[in-house]
């Protein structure tokens, strides 16, 4: 152990990581909002009695759940523009890859939540004259979403970690900035340790919060 830790260069260049962190938070917000809301729609379609809705939703879920996110990002960055002629920058490629993947995963979470509601709830909705959509919106979803809240939070945590993959196509986020710092100052050990600590410090309270949430919901159920 001859290495002497020296975080001075990291602290001097804190704004480099700060820019990265802002990039991370930005892409996280965009992907998590797109992913969790798109997932809800796909999850509902997946559960729908009409095959015209459920089959495409199922195909979507299977494709995006069963391919690695990095492959999706790279595909959107290099292959998609050739196919469509649409210009794709690193941000768009990462957003497409991460949010489509998140939609697929969260769709399954929503579906499991809807399925966990006892059939009596649907019948009660029907009995007071509600349509399928009304029952779903007013009776089923509020309870279902509450039940899957811990699973959704976990997904959110995964999305936050996934945002580092955007660095592979050179989107400016925390890890990408750390690469820059490491190259500039020849101190990869401090740079990458700093990134690991940043993620840990941000996510650890969230993870603990999820445990608390799980316990609270279990009690209330």
């Amino acid at each position, binding site marked *: 152990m001859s290495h002497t830790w020296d975080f001075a260069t990291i602290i001097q260049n804190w704004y480099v990581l700060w820019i990265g962190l802002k990039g991370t938070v930005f892409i996280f917000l965009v992907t998590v909002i797109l992913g969790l809301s798109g997932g809800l729609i796909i999850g509902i379609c997946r559960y729908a009695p009409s095959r015209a809705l459920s089959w495409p939703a199922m195909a979507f879920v299977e494709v995006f759940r069963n391919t690695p996110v*990095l492959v999706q990002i790279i595909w959107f960055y*290099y*292959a998609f523009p*050739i196919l469509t002629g649409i210009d794709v920058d690193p941000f768009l490629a990462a957003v497409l890859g991460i949010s489509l993947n998140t939609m697929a995963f969260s769709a399954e979470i929503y579906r499991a939540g809807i399925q966990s509601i006892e059939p009596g709830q649907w019948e009660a909705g029907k009995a007071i004259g509600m349509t399928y959509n009304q029952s779903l919106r007013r009776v089923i979803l509020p309870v279902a979403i509450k039940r899957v809240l811990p699973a959704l939070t976990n997904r959110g945590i995964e999305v936050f*970690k996934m945002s580092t993959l955007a660095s592979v196509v050179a989107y400016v986020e925390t890890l990408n900035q750390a690469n820059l710092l490491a190259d500039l100052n020849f101190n990869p050990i401090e740079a990458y340790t700093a990134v690991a600590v940043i993620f840990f410090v941000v996510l650890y309270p969230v*993870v603990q919060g999820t445990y608390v949430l799980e316990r609270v919901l279990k009690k209330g159920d």
Partner: protein
Amino acid sequence: MVEWNFIAVFSDFDLLLIGLLNTLKITALALLFGVPLGLVFALSRLSKFLPLSFTAAFIIEFFRTTPPLVQLFWFFFALPILIDVRMTPFIAAVVTFSIQSSAFFAEIFRGGIQSIDKGQWEGAKAIGMSYRQSLIRIILPQAVKRMIPAFMERSIELLKTTTLVSTVAYADLMFQANDLAQKTFRPLEVYTVVALMYFVLIFVFSQMSILVEKRLAQSGESTVR
């Protein structure tokens, strides 16, 4: 209109097959080391000796909350500075994914062990079994059966995560794809084929795990997530 041309891809298909093999190799090695390590972490976390339990909890939470790509970079670029080892992409990949997945396996083990009725420990204790004997003979055989679905799901996640090793230039399927795309100037075909290869591989594993889960459900076994 785009013209698809797969000739370039398939004439160098053996490159992709080598990548696929390396992907499977990294996954298998990470499982080989990660599962026993996960058991050790889980038992440590369940230990009544608080310093051990606390340390294990910290390691587990740290590796669960930091992005795997950051861990990989850390092991590849930073670790060799800290200790004097010659780091190769292969070693960095195996070390990273073994430890990273062990943190997740630890939580699966812990869930499995905790799901076993307290009476099983008591039954074993009452016939004179030590903690070790109870764990090995009575608790783990039951816990492992319940853990299988979660275990398979995690293994599939691991397989997907191994794509990250391409960023430190280990020749897995993703890396070979990048290589081939540059060589052939056919990124559309190369990445599409590679995406399909991953899809088929992972889809088959997923279906297998669903099948096993159904079997277990039929045999009346409850499972833990």
